[in-house]
């Protein structure tokens, strides 16, 4: 992202902040355990968990900050927070 004078931004510009770089722990999804309830997608503060046509939930690691809310709330305990290897 090139700097805008005075840190000015058009709508949607926050997409340029690749918040995935903040992550220390990474949510790893176990699709075998997943009950497809969609809680993770609802609760994700970054809004970065997407749902496919056959209800497979996947986080976008470009933006996932690794906050761990999805893992905490998952009723099926299908999400594990694993230390990032960088």
């Amino acid at each position, binding site marked *: *992202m090139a*700097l805008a004078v*005075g*840190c*000015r*931004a058009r709508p949607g510009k926050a997409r340029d*902040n690749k918040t995935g*770089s903040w992550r220390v722990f990474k949510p790893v999804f176990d699709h075998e355990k997943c009950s497809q309830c969609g809680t993770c997608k609802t609760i994700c503060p970054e809004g970065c968990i997407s749902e496919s046509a056959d209800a497979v939930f996947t986080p976008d690691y470009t933006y996932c900050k690794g906050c761990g809310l999805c893992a905490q709330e998952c009723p099926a305990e299908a999400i594990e927070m694993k230390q990032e290897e960088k």
Partner: protein
Amino acid sequence: MPELIEGSLAVAEAVRLCRPQVIAAYPITPQTHIVEALAEMVANGKLDADYITVESEFSALSACLGASAAGSRTYSATTSQGLALMFEVCFNVAGMRFPVVMTIANRALGAPLSIWNDQQDSISLRDSGWLQFYAEDNQEATDLHYIAYRVCEDPSVLLPAFVCFDGFILSHTYEPVEQLAQVDVDKFLPKFTPKERLDAADPISFGMFASPDYYMEFRYAHDKALKDSKAIIEKAGKEFAKLFGRDYSALIEGYHLKDAETVLVAMGSICGTTKDAIDEMRAEGKKVGLLKIRVFRPFPTEELAKALAGAKRVAVLDKNISLGSKGAVALEVKDALYGSGIPVYGYILGLGGRDVRKKDIKEIVTLAEKGQIDQFYGLRKEVL
């Protein structure tokens, strides 16, 4: 044809001629006369502007920030505690790159409470990213408002400016001031048309969040824009001189500098007293000169080093003190002359309205000649 007029009223008239669209200010001595006069002009239909009455200086500058974001030419004025209350907003206005122009009628900061003059208020905001102009007399104080708007609104600058003039010493003094004609001002200062402004039909946000990946680059860009504004000041000053005959193109000004052995460095109204003292010292055969700093931010480091290259010693007169360290101007002058071998002596004087007379300037020259740094000059030792 010059008119004999109070400094504050002369400044108010110049501001009117600059056609600000939004004025937000809160009265505070010794700045009040300026905004009172402007409020009257708006009420009498002599100035087509929105005058926003606010409950504090914090709100005053916040209103200016918003109005500037919406694309208006904005104005405020304050001093001392009022400026201190604006501290946070000052950094935001500058960081969001809004060309707000604000007059500072320089006054001491409390405690202890003092309504009298020194330059501690604006100096304390030297790191806020605003341009800072200092006027020697009321003609200069008046003219610097045209220069400030012109420079600040330049698309390559887009920064706010303080136009500082000494409270009471200038603000409440009657001096002959030549005012410009509206038609000429309009030629020098065209309508403010920012490329980006708040507009519901074309949404934009200002001063957004910057993560550690970007913050430093924003600070670098801000610093660069401020330093690069030197060229724009020079250009605007030259054009002003061509149109009106008074030249403010240089960030510094010399008085008997050429063969001076002792050079005094000062800002603001003290320069007038210093020039008179120099005339008398010159008549006695003393080779003394003055280097006046008109623009403190961006600081004219290279210009100053060049201008002082021939001096045997430099004595800096500071109407402020960075408590626990030294006078702010002396520190910058020392930085500019680092490695030159020219000794720089700093003197703190005139704080909280203490008079500075010709004899004081002469005494300081004598002290500097003896190589004595008297950091506080003229202390009443009997009360200490």
